[in-house]
Each structure stands twice: as structure tokens, then as C-alpha cells.
């Protein structure tokens, strides 16, 4: 069997960490762009923002579409980051697994809540 680990690893192969690394960059970039979109829409509001202006930013269907994607990007990003923290500092497998499960519950719950807020508008 040919050597496919170490310096000979296959870039597209699984479990080399490239996927998480790339996900972290892609989702992070998306959130930076989304921040700019929201910021521009806030700054483009004439007069004081108020409830009408603020809710008006998220009300159009295209903005809900975008915000929904960003919520998914966010929890994926946080999952990769938090798992990294647990893997670096928490060594006992039982504690680390519990924290990872807690992280997933925390994030999935938050995502559901945020999505509900979005589509109640």
C-alpha cells in the first residue's frame, strides 16, 4: 500500500484537519461579509433607527435567507472552535465528550431559537 500519511498525505483525504481548517475560514469570511451588510443597512437608514428601521433590516425574504445561512455558519464555526479548546485543555475522555455534547446542545438550541425569531418577523 502506498504511503499516504505524513508529508505524503492526500489533501482531499479525510481526518487530516484540512476540512475543519477550511470551514473555519469560509464561515468566518461569510460572517465578516454579513457584518458589513447589516452595518451598511443600519447606516443607510435615514433618521433614528427605531423599531421600524431595525426590524425592516431583517424583514425582507432575501435577508432572512442570508441570515439563516449565517446562523448555520455561526454554529458550525463555534463548534470547530470550541471543540479545539476542549481538545487542547481537557484530557479525560469522559469530560471532553460531555463538554462536546453540551456544546452541540447549546449551539443547536441557540440556532433554533434564532431561526424562530427570524421567521416570526
Amino acid at each position, binding site marked *: 500500500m502506498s504511503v499516504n500519511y505524513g508529508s505524503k498525505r492526500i489533501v482531499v483525504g479525510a481526518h487530516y484537519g484540512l476540512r475543519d481548517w477550511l470551514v473555519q*475560514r469560509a464561515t*468566518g*469570511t461569510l*460572517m*465578516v461579509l454579513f*457584518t458589513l451588510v447589516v452595518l451598511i443597512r443600519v447606516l443607510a437608514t435615514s433618521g433614528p433607527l*427605531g*423599531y421600524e428601521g*431595525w*426590524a425592516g433590516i*431583517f424583514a425582507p425574504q432575501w435577508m432572512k435567507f442570508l441570515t439563516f445561512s449565517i446562523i448555520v455558519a455561526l454554529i458550525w464555526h*463555534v463548534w470547530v*472552535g*470550541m471543540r479545539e*479548546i476542549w481538545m487542547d485543555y481537557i484530557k479525560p475522555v469522559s469530560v471532553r465528550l460531555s463538554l462536546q455534547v453540551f*456544546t452541540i446542545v*447549546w*449551539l443547536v*438550541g*441557540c440556532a433554533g*431559537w*434564532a431561526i424562530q*425569531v427570524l421567521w*416570526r*418577523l
Partner: protein
Amino acid sequence: MTELVTPSRAKRPEFRNINAFKDLPGYRWPLAALVSGMHRISGLIMFLLLPFIIWLFDTSLTSEYSYARFTSLFSVGVAGVPGGLFKLVALGLIWAYLHHIIAGLRHLWMDVSHDAVSKEFGRRSAIVTLVLSLGLTAVLGAKLFGLY
């Protein structure tokens, strides 16, 4: 490599099992390491406060009435918790967000530019990150606390 075998050099300490109380206080924190550590801490803070952030998103968007509750949160507070405390937490979140986003952009820059992967750039960009994130936090914090 040659400097490693120079006999006049003092032996560098070697850590096999880091003790938080004995070893960490003597740790050197170059600015790039500080930015990296703060990147983790800011991310952790935002992760732990995520339900609070979404609660703010919820109350600010749900209705005219809840929006009024949202704004009064930072002036009169809610359920015995003073408004100033909410402002402090918001300030902490503003810092966490700014630091995390700027330190993240620094990483992206290092990913696309080979010239940026050097000790010197690491140090200089760490200074830029700290100046920008703390500066912007100060500006927005002053606005939050009504200084202008």
C-alpha cells in the same frame, strides 16, 4: 541550528507536564501569543453568552413593545439587574467581537500571503490587532456610555 549547540547558551527549560500554578506565571507572552490567547478567550465568551445574544436579538426584533423593553434594558435594567451592568456586558461583547474578527482577518491574511508568515509580521500585525480592537472598543464604549 548552530545556535542550538552553542555551549555558552543557558539550557532552556523543558516542560513535560505544565503546572498551572508553578509554570504558567513564568510564561513569556509575546504579543502574537497574547493576541492568540485573547482570540480563544473572546470566542469562549461569545459562546457562553450566545443565549444572551439571541435573547437580545429576540427582544429587539419581536415587536414594538419588546423593542421598548430592549432599549430600557440598558437604562433602567430588568428584574433588579441595573442597566449599567447590561452596558458592561455589552461592552465586553463588543470587545470580544472586534478582537475575534480582527484577529481572524489577521489569520486570513497569513493564509493568503507567504510574506506574512514571519516572526516579525506576527509581532507587527499583533500590535495592529490590539490597537484596532481596543481603539474601536473604546470609541464604541464611549458611545454606549453616552460620553458623546
